[in-house]
């Protein structure tokens, strides 16, 4: 090989022209500045304090459980002798609670998700399409308000379940799930489709001959499922479960709505309430670091595991038809009597949001009165309409940056023959696994430390710019992945033909590459946009730094949280939820039906 440094440089510059260098440097610089540096700063601040101060505080860490998991009370309620059974869970302090909760939620979501995926992947029955839609409904993001509906389901006083059991069936029982247990139930209901979708796509990709072979050797029923089907679906299972685990850890909506402070995410969030003064408790940094390390550990191990377990299917050329069986009468009965009601129940929070938005009152177990005034208040209420405009502004600005970064990074990753591209790939995809709360904490330190007193200081100028950057970084993976997938389908000769005819890199990019990947780009950008609009973690933390007044800078989700505890507020929050649902449905339709691309269901 040409040994000297000069000749190596000359060789490198042959493959890297100025446009490629810009495409490499731009995303790398932005991601280092606005992702890596803030995270490092979190670690640095956390390192200034002893982690044992946190671990020795029973608020965060305790080995002795506090409270009773189930409260049973025999009492008179509304003139009737009833037994109240309330599941609340026990507490080991915020850190342990978050971990135990994540484990329970992952287990619950996995069992539900695998069961639903198996039925859909292997059986054919009338009404399946409707049930499949129901099963994905919990993924429609309606921050806070869906958990609010879940709480309403499980409230022992005015909850729908209690009402049904006690007032409709007439049993002397009032059932409730609340506190820590409530958070777990809400998260299982919200996150199980992540497992379902991942396992489902694994299962329909299993070569049917593998199962047939096992059956041929005598395995059937649960044994077949346990020994062949499930192990072959492990990559999907691992990916789905890992996502649930990470989302459960970082989810702040369920703890807030259940007013359950004993979770890491709630603790980090609550520190922000005092942050408008320009000070953030160092405990926030320590807790954020714990959150980050937990999430990254899961992400890293699952990345390795999923890659190790990429079972190569021996395909015989064309795509196979997945094994589909007709169900016996008994099976059909089980579907309609067990699965269908279960899926309706799991989708109920989203349905409830819609009901809430169109009802006048919903204080008792059942909603009352139909009205459009809640929807109207999105326009009429100046705080709300301003939040909508803010969110649109931030999301569109973020989108511009996302498109620029996404195209640049993916192009370099897909095409440039230079070392270090893998690192950029990791940087671009990792925000999927990085809790938004950690980014919020990092941004707070980063901008109040290095930009104190400048227009970039959120205490001085409000959070607008921080939110745009946070949205850009967090939602970049959707667009970057879509562009990357598009580039893999564009034959490199199409670009070479352009270069060969005398067009430079930039011209080739604009005239050839971008038009050829436009559908992928558009789809990815739409998904990024939708998840910017519904972004929660940084919105409710950083979003409040400008205060809430006439000309506030807060986005939709911040106002949703703010209105949740106002009188009549939930109806307006639900209307915003309906707005977000409509937006998501529109984008899903555009992406799947019009652009014929795959919609990536990962958000929060």
């Amino acid at each position, binding site marked *: *090989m*040409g040994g000297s440094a000069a000749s190596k440089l*000359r*060789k490198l510059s*042959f*493959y890297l*022209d100025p446009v490629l260098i810009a495409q490499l440097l731009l995303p790398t610089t932005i991601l280092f500045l606005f992702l890596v540096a803030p995270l490092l700063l979190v670690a640095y601040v956390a390192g200034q304090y002893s982690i044992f101060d946190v671990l020795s505080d029973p608020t965060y860490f305790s080995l002795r459980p506090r409270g009773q998991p189930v409260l049973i009370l025999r009492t008179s309620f509304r003139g009737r002798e009833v037994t109240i059974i309330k599941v609340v869970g026990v507490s080991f302090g915020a850190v342990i609670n978050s971990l135990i909760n994540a484990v329970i939620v992952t287990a619950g979501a996995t069992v539900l998700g695998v069961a639903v995926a198996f039925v859909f992947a292997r059986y054919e029955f009338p009404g399946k399409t409707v049930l499949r839609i129901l099963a994905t409904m919990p993924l429609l993001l309606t921050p806070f308000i869906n958990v609010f509906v879940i709480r309403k389901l499980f409230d022992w006083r005015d909850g729908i379940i209690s009402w049904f059991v006690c007032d409709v069936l007439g049993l002397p029982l009032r059932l409730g799930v609340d506190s820590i247990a409530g958070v777990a139930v809400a998260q299982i209901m919200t996150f199980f489709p992540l497992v379902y979708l991942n396992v489902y796509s694994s299962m329909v990709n299993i070569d049917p001959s593998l199962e047939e072979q096992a059956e041929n050797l005598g395995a059937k029923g649960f044994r077949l499922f346990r020994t062949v089907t499930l192990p072959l679906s492990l990559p999907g299972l691992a990916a789905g479960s890992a996502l649930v685990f990470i989302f459960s850890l970082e989810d702040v909506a369920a703890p807030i709505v259940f007013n359950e402070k004993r979770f890491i995410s709630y603790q980090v969030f609550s520190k922000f309430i005092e942050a408008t003064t320009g000070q953030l408790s160092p405990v926030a940094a320590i807790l954020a670091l714990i959150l980050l390390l937990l999430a990254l550990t899961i992400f890293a191990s699952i990345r390795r595991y999923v890659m190790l377990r990429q079972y190569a299917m021996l395909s015989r050329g064309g795509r196979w038809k997945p094994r589909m069986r007709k169900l016996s009468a008994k099976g059909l009965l089980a579907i309609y009597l067990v699965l269908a009601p279960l899926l309706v129940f799991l989708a109920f929070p989203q349905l409830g949001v819609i009901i809430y938005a169109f009802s006048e009152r919903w204080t008792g177990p059942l909603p009352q009165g139909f009205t459009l005034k809640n929807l109207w208040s999105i326009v009429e209420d100046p705080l709300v309409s301003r939040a909508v405009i803010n969110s649109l502004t931030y999301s569109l600005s973020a989108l511009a940056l996302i498109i620029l970064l996404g195209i640049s990074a993916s192009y370099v990753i897909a095409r440039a023959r230079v070392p270090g591209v893998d690192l950029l790939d990791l940087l671009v995809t990792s925000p999927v696994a990085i809790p938004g709360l950690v980014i919020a904490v990092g941004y707070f330190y980063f901008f109040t430390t290095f930009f104190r007193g400048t227009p970039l200081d959120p205490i001085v100028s409000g959070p607008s710019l921080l939110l745009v950057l946070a949205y850009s970084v967090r939602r970049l993976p959707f667009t970057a992945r879509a562009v990357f997938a598009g580039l893999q389908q564009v*034959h490199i*000769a*199409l670009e*070479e*033909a*352009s*270069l*060969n*005819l*005398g*067009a*430079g890199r930039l*011209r080739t990019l604009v*005239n*050839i590459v971008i*038009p*050829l990947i436009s559908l992928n780009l558009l789809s990815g950008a739409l998904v990024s946009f939708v998840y910017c609009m519904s972004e929660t973690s940084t919105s409710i933390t950083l979003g409040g730094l400008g205060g809430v007044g006439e000309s506030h800078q807060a986005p939709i989700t911040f106002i949703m949280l703010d209105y949740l505890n106002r009188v009549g507020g939930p109806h307006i929050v639900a209307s915003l939820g309906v707005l977000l649902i409509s937006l998501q449905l529109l984008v899903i339709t555009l992406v799947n039906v019009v652009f014929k691309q795959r919609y990536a269901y990962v958000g929060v």
Partner: protein
Amino acid sequence: MTRVSLRGVTKRFEDVVAVDRVSLEVREGELFTLLGPSGCGKTTTLRIIAGFELPDEGSVFFDNEDVTYKKPYERGCAMVFQNYALWPHMTVYENVAYGLKVRGLPAREIRKRVDEVLELVGLRGLEDRYPTQLSGGQQQRVALARALVVEPKVLLLDEPLSNLDAKLRLRMREEVKKLQKELGITTIYVTHDQEEAMSISDRVAVMNRGRVLQVGTPIEVYTKPANLFVATFIGRSALLRGKIVRADGRRVSILTRGGFKLEGTGLGVRSGDTEIVAVVRPEDFSLSPLPDANIIEGKVELVMFLGPYKQLRVNARGERIIAYVDPEEEVKAGEIIKLYIKPEDVKVYSAEGWEELEFE
């Protein structure tokens, strides 16, 4: 018109040496073909000339200018890709006009030149079609027009006809040759099809395993293959293994394994070689006696009438020989016949590398 020279060009991909110390001179205005089996390095060589790959060693010159480190868009060559690489989002007109737009020509000039080149390749009237609405042959012409319209210094063709059906391939072959002669553009043509190479080229470079084994006119390469690989790759020859009995300059006497004593011409024999291979082209066998000719006797196993000639499969003491003879000859399977071969048509090569040859 431009002269292209490669000097000691080497390109490795990981441990594989794709191009191994290749030096070539392509003369102004000639149609030069890189011929070889797949994986021989011919396409990589072409991509180095186009500027898509950087050689690890050696340089590329256009006339006297070293272009080794020049970017593809700075070289002024134009390439026709194996899969045509037509842009699916552009019409025929837009595809062809692209190179001129990039060069910043005025719209009227572009219009004129695109019209001319489309006329030249016979695609007038299809300007507004998209590539997917064209047949394979039409796509091929668009690709050719797109390359020709920019009046490149060097035209590069990477297996341009391999995706066409047999009949169309023959027609396009003639058209490419005709166009190239009319326009006089220095052209480098890559193919694995020896017949295509023979028929179209001014000169041919036969490549194998990254190396150029012989450069010459098609007639030279066909009649005087420089080594065993070239001799076997081109044409469909009888291969007789044996030993040298006596060597006298280029004239050698050999004894084949089947026991035939033959007089031949040593083309790739070094002194000291004992193991040799004698190569005889099928059309060099004759059924009528020739003066001073070698004689091989054998049994006809199969007779096939192929139009211009009859193909005989002959078993001569275990050696399998394919011979083309006059279609008028009365030969039947099972007959014992004598085949006559002139000594100059028995080409003798060292058997070194025999094991590496691939046979059909």
